[in-house]
């Protein structure tokens, strides 16, 4: 456990030092949105809850909740997923 924390701290420090994008080093998800109609999420950890007005997706260090209307999982691949629909909110939770 302590090892893990030390490793994470080292990684963070390295990422800041080398000015590298954090998603490469730290396994963070990369979210790109087009307006509020499309959301591309790279590096996800599986779907926790799925309905047409709320999608919860597991990500590194927590969950991402997408709230909206008529949400559709356009594509889901092992590494990325595309959500379309009218997105109202994005919430991060532990």
């Amino acid at each position, binding site marked *: 456990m302590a090892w893990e924390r030390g490793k994470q701290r080292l990684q963070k420090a390295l990422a800041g030092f080398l000015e590298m994008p954090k998603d490469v080093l730290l396994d963070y998800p990369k979210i790109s949105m087009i307006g509020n109609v499309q959301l591309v999420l790279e590096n996800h950890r*599986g*779907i*926790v809850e799925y309905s*047409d007005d709320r999608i919860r997706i597991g990500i590194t260090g927590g969950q991402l909740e997408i709230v909206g209307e008529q949400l559709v999982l356009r*594509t889901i691949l092992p590494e990325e997923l595309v959500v379309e629909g009218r997105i109202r909110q994005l919430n991060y939770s532990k």
Partner: protein
Amino acid sequence: MLRRWWSYWIGFLGIRIEGSQLEKFINLAASRGIPLYDLRREASGRLSAKVRMDGFRSLRHVARKSGSRMRIQSRYGWPFYASTLKRKRSLVIGVFSFVLTILIMSTFVWDVDVIGNDRVEKQQLLQVAREKGIRVGSWRPLIDVREAEHSLMGAFPGLEWVGVTAKGTRVVIEVQEKVLPKKPVVNGPCHIVAAKSGVIQRLMVLVGEGKVAEGERVAKDQVVISGLLYDHKPAAHTQAEEKPTPPKLLEKVQARGEVWAKVSYDQWIEEPVLLEGTVPTGAVSEQWRIKWGNQEIIIKGPRNNPYPTGSEEVSMRTPSLWRNLGIPVEIIKTEYHELRAFRQERTAQEALAAAQEKARQAVSGLLPPGARVLREMVLPQPAPPERVKVKVSVEVLEDIAVPQSIEAGP
């Protein structure tokens, strides 16, 4: 985009999944690398998705693991479409035969056209081309274009160049005719006469007998080199009292030679000192009309000339429908140019210079090629007030030889 196209060829299925652990189903599918598309929650709590054909079998396994039931809803893509086409065999045959017909038809020649012939008959050209296999209905690959060009060149000596181009279903025979020399060649015996009156500077007799000496003045149409050769040897004196016999005509020849003479051209030009006229201001308005039979409709532009002083240019166009099928409609474009009056106050000197320039222009229009200007004289003439008058005489050295048939001559 590419992925969509690819999945169309592989084929994909629309499925409906029922179960209590739909998230688990999705996660399992994703982790196994089975891409699911267009996942949708339906009102009944079911899930609809699309999956590629190659991922469907492993999806069964996923469904069993997550305790959900799958039903195939619809099928998309090429493999399914192909199977329906198998049932509609005649449609496929029809499509293919249509395409094939178009392809085959486009390998034939449907149109042969001749461009650029002026003196050579089009029908004759087409006849020769026909012998070489260029005719309506012949098969394109069999046509040897170069061969046809050569045979056309051989058949018509009056052609300078022939180009045969096959473009689609159309063969165009393009022809350049030889430009023959402009001098009228007189066949048979002829004299050389003067085209203009002048003073002979140099006489070069190639064939015939020179009738004038250098430095002599000749009038227009005077025989300079004669084509009649006489025997000038004095006949043997038989009797002293006898009249001298007229010299005997030996032969008639085609006289040839060059006659370089000094010809003078006189031009009288009168110019007003005060120049008045109109120049275009540059303002232009266009009017477009359509003429159909004897009705005219103005489509665009003013009804008539909008400028107080103006000139108009009319150009007509007849739109062609296709190749040489016309429609009986003319499009008439009228351009109105605005003009504005101007006055230019000139001194007499400037007017003289302008007049001289005009005279020079007029003379140079009269000169034959190869002429050389020897001298220019400008003589101001008495003129009415407010005008200038000038006489410009130009002396030119030029060839004034013109053949004239002996029968036609006096």
